[in-house]
């Protein structure tokens, strides 16, 4: 097309010809926005003080964009934009449905909280080594993964967020950080390779990578193609990303080494991207194969829950305890995916959203506790309650929320999951869920009892003020679960229609291929 053509060509066979409105742009805007801000921050090397201001404003903008997107999707149904105007399945599609935009919005909220928390946590050398650009690029990867409608593109966004997370992990370059990064990096690269192998296999079978196209072609191929093998490969790859048992050991080995805000963001975002991918591939693309693998996944989920929470009981380091609690939560989500149905999938989505908020909040609390107590072990830290009552109250709320006690957000997904498990007669899975919840109460209670309530004989009886940059994100992330727990109806209704949209993706397919589309 280097020379303007004079003879008319029928473009409607290859291109999307309808005008694109601003509402359609909301699908791609979260990614483009993060890239633009991230690139701007990389360019601004000298005025390092501007970094935090631009990044926080950028993340606030991202929350706004994702909220607008969710509102649009909730009223109009899934939205699709195909890159470069090419018709799907040839152009790379970005499709936002309720599930994707819910995840994207909560991820943006978590990132904004992290951005504010980092004002007090990241020092000048961290800023100079690029904390804020990495954060923005990480969010580009995370948003892209939640909104893309193409399997290979999903792989690319995994890579983007993985590379940014390497950068964030080594920030500080201490020996134990490098040790943690090597473990994290190695296992994640293995998982990524598996993901790539599975995607190559998928392409060989289907001849397409567009998710909507795969979903509608799967029915016809089910007899002749080894779809169960393919699905099992995906389960292993995404399970590794999500830190499910028995491939969970990288998470507790690396999440306690980086800066507090980094491990908080990782705990909130990265494993949930794995869970999201698992939901997308298993529920929307391969529902029949999910059914076949259901028992294996339920078993893995139950073991992940129990192993995770036992690990949490055995640890004394704040962030190591939380690392195991992240793993335990992943088990609950896996159980939901294994059970399936509106209750199981809805419960898994709800649990993932809840876990994003609460785990990030808990890591913030762990960072503050380590700073107030002067150490990161609950064996030596004590008397935090006396030092700052408001902080202790917020932590207690988060502890309740993560254990699944009412009136916090953890309660409702647990109820949904237990009920869904009992409905299909998997009493052992329901028992594992309840046992894991009970042990989580003990694990967090032990942390609270030792570090907060135990009297510190040595220290003077004085309160310690905390800067609002530290307290505000913590308060936001503990009050939000309280709000959701007290008034869950709107979110619950949204999640239920999101789960229904995954199980019956005709609206999703219609948005990619309007009125039947090609073929």
């Amino acid at each position, binding site marked *: *097309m*280097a*020379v*303007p053509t004079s003879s008319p060509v029928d473009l409607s066979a290859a291109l*999307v010809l309808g*005008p*694109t*409105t*601003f509402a*359609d*742009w909301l699908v*791609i805007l979260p990614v*483009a926005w993060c*890239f*633009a801000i*991230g*690139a*701007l*921050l*990389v*360019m601004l*090397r000298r005025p390092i003080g501007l970094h935090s201001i631009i990044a926080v404003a950028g993340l606030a903008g991202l929350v706004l964009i994702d909220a607008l997107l969710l509102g649009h999707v909730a009223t109009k149904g899934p939205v699709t*934009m*195909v*890159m*470069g*105007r090419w018709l799907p399945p040839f*152009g790379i599609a*970005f499709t936002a449905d309720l599930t994707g935009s819910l995840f994207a919005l909560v991820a943006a909220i978590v990132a904004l909280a992290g951005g504010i928390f980092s004002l007090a946590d990241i020092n000048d050398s961290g800023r100079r080594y690029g904390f804020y*650009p990495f954060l923005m690029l990480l969010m580009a990867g995370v948003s892209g993964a939640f909104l893309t409608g193409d399997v290979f593109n999903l792989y690319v966004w995994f890579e983007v967020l993985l590379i940014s997370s390497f950068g964030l992990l080594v920030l500080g370059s201490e020996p134990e950080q490098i040790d943690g990064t090597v473990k994290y990096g190695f296992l994640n690269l293995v998982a990524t390779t598996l993901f790539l192998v599975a995607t190559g296999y998928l392409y060989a079978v289907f001849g397409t990578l567009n998710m909507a196209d795969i979903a509608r072609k799967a029915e016809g191929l089910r007899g002749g193609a080894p779809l169960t093998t393919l699905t099992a490969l995906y389960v292993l790859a995404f399970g590794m990303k999500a830190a499910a048992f028995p491939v969970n050991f990288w998470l507790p080995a690396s999440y306690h080494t980086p800066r507090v805000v980094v491990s908080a963001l990782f705990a909130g975002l990265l494993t949930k991207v794995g869970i999201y991918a698992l939901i997308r591939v298993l529920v929307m693309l391969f529902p029949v194969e999910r059914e076949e693998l259901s028992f294996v996944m339920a078993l893995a989920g139950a073991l992940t829950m129990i192993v995770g929470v036992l690990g949490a009981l055995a640890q004394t380091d704040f962030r190591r305890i939380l690392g195991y609690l992240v793993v335990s939560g992943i088990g609950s989500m896996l159980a939901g995916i294994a059970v399936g149905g509106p209750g199981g999938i809805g419960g898994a989505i709800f649990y993932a959203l809840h876990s994003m908020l609460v785990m990030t909040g808990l890591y913030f609390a762990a960072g503050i506790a380590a700073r107030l107590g002067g150490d990161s072990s609950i064996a030596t830290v004590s008397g935090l309650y006396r030092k700052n009552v408001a902080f202790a109250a917020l932590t207690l709320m988060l502890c309740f929320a993560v254990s699944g006690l009412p009136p916090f957000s953890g309660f409702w997904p647990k109820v949904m999951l237990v009920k869904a498990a009992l409905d299909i007669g998997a009493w052992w899975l329901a028992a594992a869920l309840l046992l894991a919840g009970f042990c989580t109460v003990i694990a967090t209670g032990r942390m609270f009892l030792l570090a907060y309530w135990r009297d510190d004989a040595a220290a003077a009886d004085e309160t310690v003020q905390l800067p609002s940059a530290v307290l505000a994100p913590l308060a936001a992330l503990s009050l939000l679960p309280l709000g959701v727990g007290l008034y869950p109806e709107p979110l619950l209704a949204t999640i239920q229609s999101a789960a229904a949209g995954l199980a019956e993706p005709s609206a999703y397919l219609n948005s990619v291929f309007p009125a039947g589309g090609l073929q």
Partner: protein
Amino acid sequence: MKSVIFRTVAPFLTSLMTLFSIFVLLRGHNEPGGGFIGGLIAVSALAIYGIAHGVETVRRAIYFHPLAIAGAGLFAATVAGLISLFAHVPFMTGLWVYPSIFGVEIPLSTVMLFDTGVYLVVVGSISSVALSLEERGGE
């Protein structure tokens, strides 16, 4: 490096390679070439200059910090995609203009801007690696 021949030839070689890298970048739209390979050629040019005259000279010569160049490239690539917002077409749709400069019609496009962005990202990031490796190996 102390060799007089190398030190004399290096500036010419570097300018020639940089010119060639831009040629490869612009040629890339319809023929083999493009931003990535062009960027790599430009980095090799900088690396040769660095071996001959020292890393400091190169850093002074490119004026901006290599990573800032990479950031500018990423920004250019993003902007290339965002321009289509104003034309009411999807992200990353190629848009063309044909301005006439001194009577010669010059096709310009967002695709070219994107490719230039790729070029700058490659130049910035790889030269950042190359220069710091040379710095450590040299003295």
